[in-house]
């Protein structure tokens, strides 16, 4: 026996298998049936990549095993050949997509076959075959007839590189899922498929439960569908004579309505156009809307990006809970596509609203208190006076100077324990002595510590040394011996002789430094601490060194907010400042507020979804023509089944126009037709379908690949469906896998998929792991 000659032997058996067809799936077999499905590839010029064989090998091992275990196994393969990859390649090489697609399919089929997989090649489907896409179009017509496909004129995601509209699912982190170009917005006429229809959306969500899929894929679909319960609340817009009616918002936290201090509408909200007639700053609003409408959704909603907005001056709404007038802003951190496109902003309890309110100086009102809040302790360390004042009449001690008593009073009213110890010989501070004073106080990881001036330096030194963990550190104009002046005696110099522990910032949840625009002497120290502690700096106007003389009064509400709210608190807690709802837990409060809103007739219970309708038209050549005819008299008319397929015309010019029109629009002979209803002059729809259209039902066709009467014989579907095991990449979690589930449920509902097989196509799903480069 010679050495194993793999080339010769592989070729021999592949030819034998091709001739003897041992892997043909027999519909009529009496054996128990299994359907093992691979995600079919799109035929690219590069051919197979290493990820393909990995998945195909796994499913092949499994299929061969099942056959030997006595099952009749359907294990097919095909090609998802429409779409941008094929078309872009054709554009690049200057060859017609039909020619390159055919060539690429042949190449890939040869590659796949050379690996010896046990596919039933007699069942191959290719989505670009008119005999196949006749049924892709048929499905669209059915969707249209059932009110699930409609045309709309709306701003859509637009890929400037591929020159086509994109579905939300095709936009990943603001970029085109295919080419990576930054996605912009464009307003054009579009076909949408109503995946959010009430007949489907809850099923798409709830039925995930019954699937044996990787939990992360199910979670991604759940997140994408994004169901949230809450309330719809109406805010009447004033002045009433402007006739703008009500501003409707959706919120998952109606319990925070008392904290709604302003409103935000998305730039694309219809109210903006109406408001332009009455607002005082029309130009400013118009300009803002114009710039933001071209920004991508990601840019607009990214937490890290600075929020912008413009107040619509001259109009306001009334908060139905507080009866107070609150301003209305246009800001692009609210998306037109989420909820109602408008929000009530509750800056105390929403991070984005918080940031926005801070930036534009809008009021922040706390209406939910953290449950553990009352047990929090706050320590305030005063600074170093220039001399000993203790002998002066009426002097209450350094711990009762400046803003300290005011802040203490307000904190105590809220149930916080405040310590403001008098530090020994504060005009000539000795670190060891001060330390003894502080050590008596109960400080833990929930504590907030405020240090003013030298008190700030002391507390940083003490925390550096003791390695204590605290919740928040606030330094008010803190000092460090940067510019020794003549009044610096040795003892003071020694007080400042320390290094900030580089690990201190990791032991503190949050550090904040207050400084003022008119403070120079301690500015450098503030910058130093800010750097060492990675602290956030709040710069106030005209507060000097934060002493009474500089501040002119002793109130410091900004500090109070910082102490009580570390940032926007978006969790659940106890209602405060909320009238009759005070003291209720958030979950109870939500129910009670909704009851109240309904009673008052200003709002109602509501469910909101993140999922949007599925953008179904592409302004490109290489796709299934949408089988709709536009008739002046009859409107949108579906192409009758007998006239399907509407074949893609063979043309020389297929370059995208970039104007938002499909290349098909330029072929007059094809576009102009007659209306199937009235026989009058009519025009064909010129947009094409997205690649997902062909791939969301292909696994049905494998069961009956040559049927010319229907998409597949229900009897055959009954033999094989549902798919027992589906193998492919996790990158399809919210695209193909969600679309395919939706279309399958629809086909099930209209009887195209037999009742017996259930309304979920893929019982079990497995994702192959990525194959990384050689070094991992």
């Amino acid at each position: 026996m010679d050495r194993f000659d793999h080339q010769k032997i592989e070729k021999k058996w592949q030819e034998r298998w091709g001739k003897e067809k041992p892997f043909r799936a027999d519909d009529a077999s009496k054996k128990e049936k299994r359907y093992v499905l691979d995600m079919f590839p799109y035929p690219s010029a590069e051919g197979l990549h290493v990820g393909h064989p990995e998945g195909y090998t796994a499913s092949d091992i499994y299929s061969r095993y099942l056959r030997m275990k006595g099952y009749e196994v359907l294990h097919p393969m095909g090609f998802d050949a429409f779409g941008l990859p094929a078309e872009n390649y054709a554009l690049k090489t200057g060859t017609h997509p039909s020619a390159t697609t055919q060539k690429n399919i042949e190449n890939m089929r040869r590659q796949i076959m050379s690996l010896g997989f046990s596919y039933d090649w007699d069942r191959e489907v290719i989505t670009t075959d008119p005999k196949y896409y006749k049924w892709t179009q048929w499905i669209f017509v059915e969707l249209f007839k059932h009110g699930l496909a409609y045309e709309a004129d709306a701003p859509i995601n637009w890929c400037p590189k591929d020159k086509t509209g994109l579905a939300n699912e095709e936009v990943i982190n603001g970029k085109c899922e295919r080419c990576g170009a930054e996605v912009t917005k464009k307003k054009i006429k579009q076909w949408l498929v109503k995946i959010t229809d009430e007949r489907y959306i809850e099923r798409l969500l709830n039925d995930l439960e019954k699937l044996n899929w990787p939990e992360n894929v199910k979670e991604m679909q759940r997140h994408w569908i994004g169901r949230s319960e809450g309330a719809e609340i109406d805010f009447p817009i004033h002045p009433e004579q402007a006739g703008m009616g009500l501003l409707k918002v959706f919120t998952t936290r109606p319990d925070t309505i008392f904290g709604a201090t302003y409103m935000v509408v998305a730039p694309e909200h219809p109210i903006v156009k109406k408001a332009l007639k009455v607002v005082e700053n029309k130009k400013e609003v118009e300009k803002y809307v114009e710039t933001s409408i071209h920004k991508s959704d990601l840019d607009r909603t990214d937490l890290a990006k600075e929020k912008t907005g413009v107040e619509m001056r001259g109009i306001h709404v009334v908060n139905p809970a507080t009866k107070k007038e609150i301003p209305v802003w246009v800001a692009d951190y609210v998306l037109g596509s989420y909820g109602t496109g408008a929000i009530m902003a509750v800056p105390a309890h929403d991070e984005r609203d918080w940031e926005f309110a801070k930036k534009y100086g809008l009021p922040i009102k706390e209406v939910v208190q953290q449950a553990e809040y009352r047990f929090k302790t706050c320590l305030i360390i005063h600074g170093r006076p220039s001399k000993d004042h203790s002998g002066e009449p009426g002097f209450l001690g350094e711990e009762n100077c400046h803003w300290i008593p005011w802040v203490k009073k307000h904190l105590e009213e809220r149930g916080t324990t405040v310590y403001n110890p008098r530090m020994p010989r504060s005009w000539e501070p000795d670190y060891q002595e001060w330390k003894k004073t502080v050590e008596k106080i109960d400080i833990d990881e929930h504590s907030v510590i405020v240090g003013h001036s030298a008190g700030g330096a002391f507390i940083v030194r003490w925390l550096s040394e003791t390695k204590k963990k605290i919740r928040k550190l606030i330094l008010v104009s803190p000092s460090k011996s940067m510019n020794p002046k003549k009044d610096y005696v040795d003892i003071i110099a020694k007080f400042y002789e320390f290094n900030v522990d580089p690990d201190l910032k990791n032991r503190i949840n949050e550090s904040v430094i207050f400084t003022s625009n008119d403070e120079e002497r301690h500015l450098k120290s503030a910058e130093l601490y800010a750097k060492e502690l990675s602290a956030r700096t709040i710069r106030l106007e005209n507060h000097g060194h934060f002493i009474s003389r500089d501040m002119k009064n002793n109130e410091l509400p900004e500090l109070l907010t910082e102490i009580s709210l570390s940032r926007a608190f978006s969790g659940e807690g106890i209602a405060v400042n909320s009238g009759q709802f005070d003291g209720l837990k958030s979950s109870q409060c939500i129910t009670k507020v909704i009851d109240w809103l309904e009673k008052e007739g200003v709002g109602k219970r509501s469910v909101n979804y993140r999922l949007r309708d599925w953008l179904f038209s592409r302004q490109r050549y290489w796709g299934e023509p949408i089988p709709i005819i536009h008739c002046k008299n009859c409107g949108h008319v579906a192409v009758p089944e007998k006239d399907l397929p509407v074949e893609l015309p063979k043309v020389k010019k297929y370059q995208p126009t970039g104007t938002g029109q499909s290349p098909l629009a330029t072929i007059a002979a094809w576009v102009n037709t007659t209306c199937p209803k009235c026989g009058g002059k009519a025009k064909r729809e010129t947009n094409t379908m997205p690649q997902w259209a062909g791939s969301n039902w292909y696994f049905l066709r494998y069961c009956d690949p040559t049927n010319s009467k229907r998409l597949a014989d229900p009897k055959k579907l009954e033999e094989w469906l549902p798919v027992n095991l589906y193998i492919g990449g996790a990158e399809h979690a919210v695209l193909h896998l969600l679309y395919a589930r939706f279309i399958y449920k629809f086909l099930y509902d209209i009887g195209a998929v037999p009742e017996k097989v259930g309304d979920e196509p893929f019982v079990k799903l497995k994702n192959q792991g990525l194959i990384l480069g050689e070094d991992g």
Partner: protein
Amino acid sequence: MGPFEDAKPWSMKGIVGVRRFIDKVWKLSASQQASKPAQAAVPALASVNKRTHALVKKISEDILAFKFNTSIAAYMEYVNAATADAEKFSLADFEVFVKLLSPFAPHIAEELWELMGHRESISKEPWPTFDPKMIVEDRVQLVVQINGKVRDQIMVAIDINQAEATRVAVASEKVQKWLDGKQPKKIIYVKGKLLSIVV
């Protein structure tokens, strides 16, 4: 190669390793053909080696769990054992092995199957079964202590006696290092579990 659902680096070494394995299978088949001519009666399943039963169990479980990487390791181990200890493996063992290999390496499996005198595609063969009684562990890990500290673990036959266990243990390099030439004062033996040597 790692588990199916994990990310894994591409490795040319892995490919070379698999190729080498295929060559080994091929060679093993050649020696099988030479030593046991096809006209000799094929031994009944009962004579199938314990290791072969264990392999049937292992591969069947791995396929259902998509743990193909551990299947490959099991095949390799099996082939090494069969190559080293050829007289303990029958043609029946080899037939079972080729069937088990066929979903993973269908071309060579078909070829070997044909060389063994079969006409039909191996894919039409029923999947081999195993006898659970044949998969009893007959070797165990014996813990070796020296002066109360665990110094080694060695694979021994489950029914090994104290004298034999001591002989095997003392031969271990690790144990020798700790004995450091000293003579055992006392030996405690718990059958099939522990051997404790005091020096």
